[in-house]
């Protein structure tokens, strides 16, 4: 297997860096700890090269070695956390608003924002009920289904919307109620923009309903989706009243906090001006 970094002109990538990234990514799979030989074999690299890459990673703390085994080191966590740090002003502005909303509605409420071409849950406050919606902060959310997340799709630029809806790989099906038809989805998005909120009846998880509203940033663009999710028997009766009003009021409160907060001005660009990156497209550098 060729190990040369040289390749045809249009490839700007650096071979060693790609290999190092693949090495790090290898730890995603169980058992998350490997020996040098395991890694070399898995990635089709020589022991020597693998060792040198591991050593470089080890010196920066990204990888840690215990006897013969390697695992991801503390520096990977520290740098990994930075991915959410950008959106932290948004999460911080939202936290107290989420707490109030949870108290008011009794259900799990959350905030999501765009990160690249994905929606990420950036904050969540769980309901006190025994049966409740649960979200993973930092976890991804689908854009074509759900409460706060579908709201994001509704306000994306036409190009970004198209990239999601017309994705050649299709839209993932979670339940029999998951939206999956492009035309239907587009129609629904138009309704969402008109009505100002999105509802999801068992679209992602059977038995769970959700609702979402956009959070407008200081300059009027959508910076986040504010959502609520809970068991259908508790949520469905309120889905069109009074939940939309309650969520909209909360989104307005959050907008106010953003306006008054230190992050305010720069936040729009930070949180929502994220260009869509499609690895299958040949985009030149801008």
């Amino acid at each position, binding site marked *: 297997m060729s*190990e*040369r*970094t*040289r390749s045809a002109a249009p490839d*700007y*990538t*650096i*071979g*060693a*860096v*790609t290999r*190092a*990234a*693949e090495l*790090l*990514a290898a*730890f995603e799979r169980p058992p*998350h700890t490997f020996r040098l030989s395991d890694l070399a074999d898995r990635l089709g690299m020589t022991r020597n*090269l693998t060792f040198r*890459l591991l*050593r*470089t990673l*080890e*010196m*920066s*703390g990204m990888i*840690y*070695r*215990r006897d013969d085994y390697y*695992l*991801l*080191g*503390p520096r*990977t*966590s*520290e*740098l*990994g*956390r*930075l*991915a*959410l*740090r*950008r959106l932290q002003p948004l999460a911080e502005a939202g936290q107290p608003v989420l707490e109030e909303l949870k108290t008011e509605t009794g259900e799990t409420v959350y905030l999501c924002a765009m*990160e*690249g071409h*994905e929606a*990420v849950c950036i904050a969540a406050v769980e309901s006190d009920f025994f049966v409740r919606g649960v979200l993973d902060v*930092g976890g*991804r959310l689908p854009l074509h289904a759900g409460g706060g997340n579908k709201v994001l799709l509704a306000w994306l630029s036409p190009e970004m919307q198209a990239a999601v809806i017309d994705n050649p790989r299709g839209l993932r099906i979670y339940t029999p109620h998951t939206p999956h038809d492009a035309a239907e989805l587009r129609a629904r998005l138009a309704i969402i923009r008109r009505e100002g909120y999105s509802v999801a009846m068992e679209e992602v998880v059977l038995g769970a309903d959700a609702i979402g509203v956009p959070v407008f940033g200081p300059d009027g663009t959508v910076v986040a989706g504010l959502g609520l999710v809970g068991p259908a028997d508790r949520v469905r009766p309120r889905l069109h009243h009074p939940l939309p009003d309650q969520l909209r009021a909360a989104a307005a409160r959050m907008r106010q906090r953003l306006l008054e907060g230190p992050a305010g001005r*720069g936040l729009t*660009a*930070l949180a929502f*001006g*994220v*260009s869509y*990156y499609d*690895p299958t497209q040949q985009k030149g*550098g*801008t």
Partner: protein
Amino acid sequence: MPRKLADTSGADKHAARAAGYSVESVARAIDLLAAFERPPHQFGVSELARQLGLTKNLVFRVLRTLEAQGFVLRVDAPQGMQYAIGLRLYDLSRHAVDRRQVLSAAARPYLDDLTRITSETTYLVAIADGGLEAICLERVESELGLRNRVDVGMRLPLFAGGGAKALLAFQPEAIQEAVITDERVRMLAAGTRTAPDDLRQDLARIRRDGYWIALEEYADGADALGAVVFDASGAGIAGVGITGPVPRLRTRLVSPELREPLIGPLLDAARALSRQLGYLGAYPAPWPMSVVVDTAVPSGAAA
């Protein structure tokens, strides 16, 4: 005069062709990722090139490579195309160990050995969040009826004692000064040194000898010794200490021959633990750490 690092890109390519790979480029990529630690956590190519003293071409290539792997993402900001750390690294980090876990787990066998050899309580300390104190991460208690008490999670001063003071001696100067001049420096026991100049002297001595002997610095009736532990990059990351009651330790500590059987194993443990953590250089590591400071000033030609 060419910038010191202006040739990096060329050197990388040459080495790459020659050796098939340049690990240098990986080190740069890691530096690039670290650059995102500064607010606002997103930057354009020019800014990154300036910060790191690298050519824009190299920065661009590294970013493209990382982007293809999902480690960075592009952000369409009003001021132009910028980059930020992507979620891939965050996802990966869920399987990563945290710093304290790494240290505690690695240290345990060495502390067990050290206690077995010396019969005294041994412990590991690291800098606590906030930076002006130490925190005990791990300890093994002596089995003798009279012993010193150290508990995991316990906060300890950095300016007094065995392991903590040894750790302080290998911190960046700014941290040392902050600790030494802090208002919390005070007499804790009969032997505590509090004058800033005295403390500076002590720290210099630790760097010279490689260990510290603390005679009743932290608590009355308690003596201790300490040595520093280095991480893979050569930074002082922890302190290993031995602590025991004065009646047992004092006569041994004040005599050069009698203290050897204590210092020898202590240094062995600190060295071995450093190696375990990936530090392969000479012990103790040079201080201050030789950091490549990219102070290259962009030439007029840099846009």
